């Protein structure tokens, strides 16, 4: 091996040349290696990376449809979509999160909870994804943020449409509300149609007509940058907005009814007997549906759920009350039509009634000394209990059941709302089935005055009264009048189903109408105080009182000593004008004591409807 040092210049030049060539070859070889690497990426794996690149930039985005609006019959808006503003941050673009949060906190209110929630979602989101910090900014806050925007890179104020109920609590029980889609609801809806949707109808019409209101989701392919910001729409299938609902509700009448009911808990249903249109749907007390749209706080929710008279409880739909004497017109009709008694035939009322085989047990009349000789009309006018005890006794519970079922008692009315209760129309068979007990004759008597097992919802009373007013044409109550698309074209009309109640003698309808007129016009009419003031039309009605708690046989009922919550419920059903009924009202006022006390409510509503010409024109 050559160990001598090379000092010769040419020798060194030669050595250097070799080295330079080796170095040159070495670098060209490695550059070739780089090129083969690029070739691998760009030619062999081209399809793979090309796909990844497309996936990177193209994103399929759902375009949630705009929810349909809800109007009353006169075009007053009941539910709309309003832009609300939300404060969001893109963490990647924020230099100092804590400083930014602090700085923003000086401009808008940001609670500890907001910050905590922000940090939680920051952990689960990619750094370039926008994270919500505050929702529902006020206009002032939006303005303040706009002015200070330059101080907070990565901050964004995002506008979204959210549901708003401009009428507040008015008719809230009919309209209902929307809320965030829950885990449970995800299992029941067509998830693909709800991509991009955050809210869904929770109660009321918002829930019943959810499918129609929601619309059909659209989609678009968008080009996004690394932050997820949309740069360009590549293609687009626009969403189909939901249908607008035009309701039968008449907000003016609705407010009139709400005000007339006043502070009492209760329900008022106003219907057109001919069309089934529900003009007013009142359940008091009520709540503000706007509270639910963005998620109600636990405190507010408990206040509503546990509060006095439970505002969330829809009395018109779920409230099952003993109909009391408002039951009498229907039983009376059944009685004369079944010929258990002639409509002119009278009997003696001595203030109580006893069954033939049980002289001991007295069934009391509300009037201690009795009404004397009464026929059907008298019994209706004065609301004589003894007459109807006798009538019920002669009919028997099963025949009563069969007749009254025709009027819709014990059945759902089929209104366009979910969760309706069917009330209770007892029968022997029912008692055996449910309570496994035999039916006692005394229970027939109690049922005859609308007490005991008998239960009806305010809506059922309104429907039954409509059938009575229509002389047998029983109609399905309807809140929806028609659906319109965004151009205002009618896409669907509500067609309520009807059925007929056949009487053996059609004249009996008039008999009952006249008898009910006497409730207001008669000398002893239970609602005569209201009747005296009637002007312009004739009303037929029936008062009712439903016991909240039982009173022992010989005990006096003294309203003064009974706490308000334990006072009797007051009921009133009515229709007008007598000759050609156009409006039916059913009222239940909890703890209102006596039906005569709520008859003025019906008059107020009917005056408004029948006497204000322009309103009447609109309503047709």
């Amino acid at each position: 091996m050559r160990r001598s040092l090379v000092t010769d210049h040419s020798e060194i030049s030669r050595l250097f040349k070799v080295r330079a060539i080796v170095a040159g070859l070495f670098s060209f070889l490695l550059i070739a290696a780089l090129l083969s690497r690029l070739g691998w990426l760009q030619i062999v794996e081209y399809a793979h990376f090309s796909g990844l690149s497309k996936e990177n930039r193209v994103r399929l985005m759902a375009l949630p449809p705009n929810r349909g609006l809800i109007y009353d019959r006169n075009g007053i808006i009941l539910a709309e979509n309003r832009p609300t503003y939300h404060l969001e941050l893109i963490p990647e673009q924020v230099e100092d999160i804590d400083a930014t949060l602090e700085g923003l906190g000086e401009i808008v209110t940001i609670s500890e909870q907001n910050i905590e929630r922000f940090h939680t979602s920051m952990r689960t989101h990619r750094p370039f994804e926008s994270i919500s910090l505050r929702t529902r900014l006020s206009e002032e806050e939006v303005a303040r943020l706009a002015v200070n925007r330059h101080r907070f890179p990565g901050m964004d104020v995002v506008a979204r449409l959210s549901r708003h109920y401009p009428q507040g609590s008015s008719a809230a029980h009919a309209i209902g509300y929307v809320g965030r889609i829950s885990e449970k609801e995800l299992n029941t809806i067509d998830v693909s149609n709800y991509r991009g949707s955050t809210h869904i109808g929770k109660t009321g019409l918002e829930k019943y007509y959810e499918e129609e209101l929601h619309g059909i989701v659209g989609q678009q392919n968008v080009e996004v940058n690394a932050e997820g910001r949309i740069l360009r729409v590549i293609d687009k299938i626009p969403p189909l907005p939901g249908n607008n609902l035009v309701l039968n509700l008449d907000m003016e009448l609705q407010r009139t009814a709400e005000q007339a009911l006043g502070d009492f808990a209760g329900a008022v249903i106003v219907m057109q007997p001919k069309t089934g249109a529900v003009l007013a749907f009142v359940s008091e007390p009520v709540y503000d549906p706007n509270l639910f749209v963005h998620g109600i706080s636990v405190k507010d929710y408990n206040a509503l759920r546990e509060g006095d008279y439970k505002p969330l409880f829809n009395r018109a739909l779920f409230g099952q009350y003993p109909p009391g004497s408002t039951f009498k017109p229907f039983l009376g009709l059944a009685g004369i039509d079944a010929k258990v008694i002639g409509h002119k035939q009278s009997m003696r009322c001595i203030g109580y009634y006893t069954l033939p085989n049980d002289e001991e047990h007295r069934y009391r009349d509300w009037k201690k000394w009795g009404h004397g000789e009464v026929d059907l009309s008298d019994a209706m006018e004065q609301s004589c209990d003894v007459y109807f005890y006798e009538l019920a006794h002669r009919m028997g519970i099963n025949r009563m059941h069969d007749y009254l079922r025709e009027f819709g008692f014990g059945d759902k009315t089929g209104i366009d709302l979910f969760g309706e209760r069917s009330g209770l129309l007892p029968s022997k068979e029912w008692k055996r089935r449910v309570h496994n007990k035999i039916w006692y004759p005394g229970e027939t008597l109690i049922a005859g005055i609308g007490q005991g097992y008998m239960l009806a919802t305010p809506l059922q009373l309104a429907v039954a009264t409509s059938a009575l007013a229509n002389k047998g044409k029983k109609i399905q109550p309807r809140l929806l009048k028609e659906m319109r698309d965004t151009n205002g074209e009618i896409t669907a009309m509500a067609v309520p189903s009807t059925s007929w109640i056949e009487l053996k003698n059609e004249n009996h309808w008039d008999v009952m109408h006249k008898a009910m007129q006497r409730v207001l016009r008669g000398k002893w009419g239970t609602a005569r105080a209201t009747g005296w003031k009637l002007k312009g039309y004739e009303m037929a009605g029936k008062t009712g009182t439903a016991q909240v708690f039982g009173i022992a046989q010989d005990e006096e009922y003294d309203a003064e000593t009974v706490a308000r919550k334990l006072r009797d419920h007051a009921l009133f059903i009515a229709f007008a004008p007598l000759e050609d009924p156009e409006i039916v009202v059913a009222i239940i006022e909890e703890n209102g004591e006596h039906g005569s006390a709520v008859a003025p409510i019906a008059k107020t509503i009917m005056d408004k409807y029948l006497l204000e010409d322009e309103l009447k024109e609109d309503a047709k």
Partner: protein
Amino acid sequence: MPSKYQFDTEYQGRFARVLQLIRIDPVLLFGLLILTLAGLGILYSAGDQSAELMQKQVVRLSIAFLVMLVAAQVSPHQLYLWTPWVFLVGVILLLMVFFAGDVGKGAQRWLKIGVRFQPSEIMKLATPLMLAWYLSERPLPPGFRSLMISSVLVLVPTIMIAMQPDLGTALLVGMAGFFVVFFAGLRWRVLIGAGLALLAFIPILWRMMHDYQRQRVLTLLDPESDPLGAGYHIIQSKIAIGSGGLYGKGWLNGTQSQLDFLPERSTDFIFAVFAEEFGMMGAVVLLSLYAFIIWRGLYIADHAQDNFSRLLAGSLSMTFFVYLFVNVGMVSGILPVVGVPLPLVSYGGTSLVTLMAGFGMLMSINSDRKLLSR
């Protein structure tokens, strides 16, 4: 037409004479100009077509070319005389940064990065200069003693820079030193022996590395293990290159680059932008351009008149290659992510100036040969 032909040659001849007068090598200048112009075009696309960015880069390039021109005026002999002092000052500066860096902690360290960066940049030139200075006076190929001293001269600045920590620069400085020894005639068996020793050294090196450095190596081996963190750069860069295909997506049309998916795309990852927009064909052209410059550098080295010039020129050319290889290797995912820019193309001033100063030296060496040969 003869007259035109004559005019052309005369004109070019005059131009060549001017270049010769200012000691500029027209061949190398041609390569550098084409490359920097192409670089500006890529940067325009990578930098979101920002005029401000372009302006800054043009100013930097002008300064860099000026530095090259100045460096070309310094004869190799003068350079030889200054070398020990440059090296000494560089090491002292490195030491200062080293201790200052140890004292200052927290936010202040950030302010000192600029200061720290300068000495290590100097060492990119000072180290090969120093080794060429040392070895050119020794008998070649270097003996054991020379090799030991050379190793110390290379390792001292390299380790100091690596501990800053700036792995990219340390690698370049180390390679610059190594190539001087290589050109000096380092025996093949020593080279292979040292290579094997280095391999054995890897586990120890692994322990010495910072966590983030280790992470970079791990990320290279399996980028999908952390797709949103350390692996994000490599994944997005590979997507950019791969989706460029054979012909590329076209200038300004790279979706990965233009839509912000590619991080650091105007600096270290600018090659991915180029490969996405110009494809495999563009990459072949660009790498050929680099190869041309490297070839010219080695040619100058081969024709240099003295050992100092030879060793320096050879090392400078190969350092330029290392730059290229490490950057493209990193961007295409075959080397770990170390902060090495694509030479003469990446946005940024310091490395540009250093590189062009090196090319100035190459030109000076080239001119010196011509002067002597005449």
